[in-house]
């Protein structure tokens, strides 16, 4: 129907806009042609969207020690600047000087010793053989992906709506604040998902469906089905979980359609630190239990707000690890512009969170139990060398993320490092991958793996379930010798994955990190944009692209017969705190009875969620 025809308009600011109403019945092919037409028009432009100021090297001062130089964007004008990364007072800092906006300095990594330890694990990716845009601009103004990007995607994000039933004070993204509704049609979503699968040699196999609040879409289950049809083997839904707290059928339908896990915001264990969904989480978890769908808790950590609760969040995860599969901490990424003083109150980095967890768990989870994301590359290298097939490799920058596994037994927390010599095992697999790549006989290598694998495991120190019958060793043999991954479920059983993912902002922005990013967004124009370009420079990526393919609020309300603001969530705290699930979930974690009802109400209202009593 739409063949050869584009419904485009220019607004008074000269911005391009698609008349999206006319695309409600458009096909994947229609969207492909539309995206191809629009994509070049949306690319950032030198002189208009950013400038280059590369000559000036930022200064180093007394007591500062050079680590490296890099490139970084100015938080005020997006200009690309030289930046210096340096050591001072045992921490790592970044500094840049914009000729227009002066010097900007920010904490980069809260512990130099950890920085050095993590750096040793850095492995870079091999890039991508085909990309969605030609190389026409410096990084990060050429996303993407452009041919110089170093990693393939490990996780693709797709925004399916910018509608949200909350109005968090720090968010500029949701529909009523943005002033338009971005909600791609199912065929448009299929086009984007297909586009992201075109990358070679390693297309993405993991997808996160995100928003806004994706559960507000009535066709969310269809989206999950489409994702499976398009070849995504792992699908997760990023949500506050509020809708699921009141709709036990939804997680059942989501699981049946192929959702693997729910990625759920969870900023703390008390109403003060988690006014977003503190009261609903117990009900959400119960509904997930009934549906057999696991959850990963996702706390955003802010120094003066909830850093003091990170240990309790781990304990909450362990208490409910029948259904909570992991906790993925996200040290805050500062949105918009913020004065230095205020930033200093909020800024935390990965080492700060790791060391706080160490402190709050009395050293049961120590800083040395954590490994940076690229440390696991030897595992994929080894399996790739054995099978001869490309495998997903987590080749992000070492400062982007870290992880560990823990179990709880008889009141004690057991991190994986207590019974696996992680360093030894990774080094061993790396050496074996080298040997295989140099052409050494596969069977000789396997024999060596068979003999030596046990050296890296002390089964007597493993959690009971893995200790019995030396199950942990049998499991490792299955994975590394027989390449049978079906047994990995046993490893994960009762374990809790702990992760850290520090997304950047324009204050600590480092081009070396973004060009290694492996968490990408697929955009409505078919570009695949690394997380820290999509969200960190939203005016050039996220907002610019989504606005083009959006409805006005009036159009959407006329089309659906709904009022956008009517969808806003109102909380019945009395009802929620008096229910049995509430007490059962928080008991032993917080002193429930010490929190006056008025405090609950105030916390919710301050956050922007109205409270009702009927």
């Amino acid at each position, binding site marked *: 129907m739409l063949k050869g025809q584009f419904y485009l308009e220019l607004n008074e600011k000269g911005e391009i806009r698609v008349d999206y109403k006319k695309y409600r019945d458009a096909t994947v092919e229609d969207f492909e042609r539309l995206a191809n037409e629009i994509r070049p028009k949306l690319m950032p432009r030198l002189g208009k969207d950013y400038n280059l100021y590369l000559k000036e090297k930022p200064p180093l001062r007394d007591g500062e020690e050079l680590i490296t*130089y890099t490139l970084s964007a100015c938080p005020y004008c997006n200009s690309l600047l030289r930046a210096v990364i340096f050591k001072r007072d045992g921490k790592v800092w970044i500094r840049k000087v914009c000729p227009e906006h002066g010097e900007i300095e920010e904490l980069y990594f809260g512990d130099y010793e950890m920085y050095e330890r993590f750096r040793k694990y*850095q492995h*870079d990716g091999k890039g991508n053989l085909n990309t969605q845009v030609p190389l026409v601009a*410096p990084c990060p103004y050429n996303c993407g992906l452009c041919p110089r990007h170093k990693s393939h995607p490990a996780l693709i994000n797709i925004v399916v709506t910018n509608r949200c039933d909350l109005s968090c004070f720090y968010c500029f993204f949701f529909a009523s604040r943005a002033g338009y509704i971005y909600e791609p049609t199912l065929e448009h979503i299929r086009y984007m998902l297909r586009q992201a699968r075109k990358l070679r040699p390693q297309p993405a196999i993991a997808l996160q469906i995100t928003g806004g609040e994706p559960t507000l879409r009535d066709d969310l289950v269809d989206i999950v089905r489409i994702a499976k049809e398009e070849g995504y083997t792992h699908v997760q839904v990023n949500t506050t979980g509020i809708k699921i707290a009141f709709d036990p059928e939804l997680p059942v339908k989501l699981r049946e359609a192929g959702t693997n896990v729910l990625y759920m915001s969870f900023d703390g264990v008390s109403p003060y630190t988690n006014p977003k969904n503190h009261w609903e989480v117990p009900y959400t978890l119960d509904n997930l239990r009934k549906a057999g769908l696991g959850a990963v808790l996702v706390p955003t950590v802010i120094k003066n707000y909830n850093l003091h609760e990170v240990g309790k969040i781990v304990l909450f995860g362990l208490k409910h690890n029948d259904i909570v599969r992991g906790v993925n901490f996200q040290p805050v990424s500062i949105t918009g512009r913020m004065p230095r003083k205020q930033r200093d109150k909020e800024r935390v980095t990965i080492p700060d969170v790791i060391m706080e967890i160490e402190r709050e768990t009395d050293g049961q989870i120590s800083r040395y139990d954590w490994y940076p994301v690229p440390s696991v590359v030897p595992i994929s290298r080894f399996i790739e060398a054995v099978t001869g097939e490309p495998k997903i490799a987590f080749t992000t920058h070492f400062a982007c993320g870290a992880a560990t596994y823990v179990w709880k037994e008889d009141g004690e927390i057991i991190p994986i490092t207590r019974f696996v010599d992680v360093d030894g095992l990774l080094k061993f697999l790396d050496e074996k991958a080298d040997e295989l790549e140099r052409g050494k006989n596969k069977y000789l290598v396997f024999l060596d793996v068979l003999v030596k694998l046990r050296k890296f495991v002390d089964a007597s120190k493993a959690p009971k379930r893995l200790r019995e019958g030396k199950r942990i060793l049998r499991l490792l043999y299955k994975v590394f010798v027989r390449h049978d991954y079906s047994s990995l479920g046993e490893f994960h059983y009762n374990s809790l994955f702990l992760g850290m993912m520090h997304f950047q902002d324009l204050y600590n922005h480092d081009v070396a990190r973004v060009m*290694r990013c492996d968490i990408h967004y697929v955009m409505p124009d078919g570009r695949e944009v690394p997380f820290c370009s999509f969200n960190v420079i939203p005016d050039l990526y996220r907002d610019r692209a989504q606005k083009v393919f959006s409805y006005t609020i009036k159009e959407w309300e006329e089309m659906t017969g709904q009022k956008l603001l009517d969808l806003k969530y109102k909380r019945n705290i009395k009802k929620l705190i008096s229910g049995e699930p509430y007490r059962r979930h928080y008991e032993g974690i917080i002193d429930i009875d010490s929190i006056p009802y008025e405090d609950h109400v105030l916390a919710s209202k301050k956050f922007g969620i109205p409270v009702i009593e009927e």
Partner: protein
Amino acid sequence: MKVKTFSFKVDTRDPRPIRLSVSARAFGVEAGKIRPLRLSEREFVEDEDLLDFDMEFGDTFNIAFNDLIHGDFDVKVLEGEAKGMVLKAYTFNDSLRERRGVLFRVVDENGATIYVDNVYFSEPLEKRIGKVSRILGVTVDEVKQVLGLQ
């Protein structure tokens, strides 16, 4: 058509060690003959040359200017003129990964890349020379000869 390429050396340790040297040459094809192009050499100017550097080595070595400034580096800009298609040959020595070799790029008369090798996914040299010679319309022996491979 203006031809631009770069020779460079880089030695970094953050975020990962790189010790790579690349020496570039360019060859023009005119009237069915392949000949080395005369290239002048000048210093690198960040604002002017960064993008061209990334275009040259982003898709071949997965190296960008940002990798260079992470450590010690030396870049020379090589420039010349050509009329028809151009073959660029990057002879490299990756002393950390103990790999040496040569990668090719062929650009058409408008400067657009029509063939390029990638250091991680390249085929054996003989096969690549075969492909390049077919694109350029010259014999394999001629390509080998100008490259000094026979």
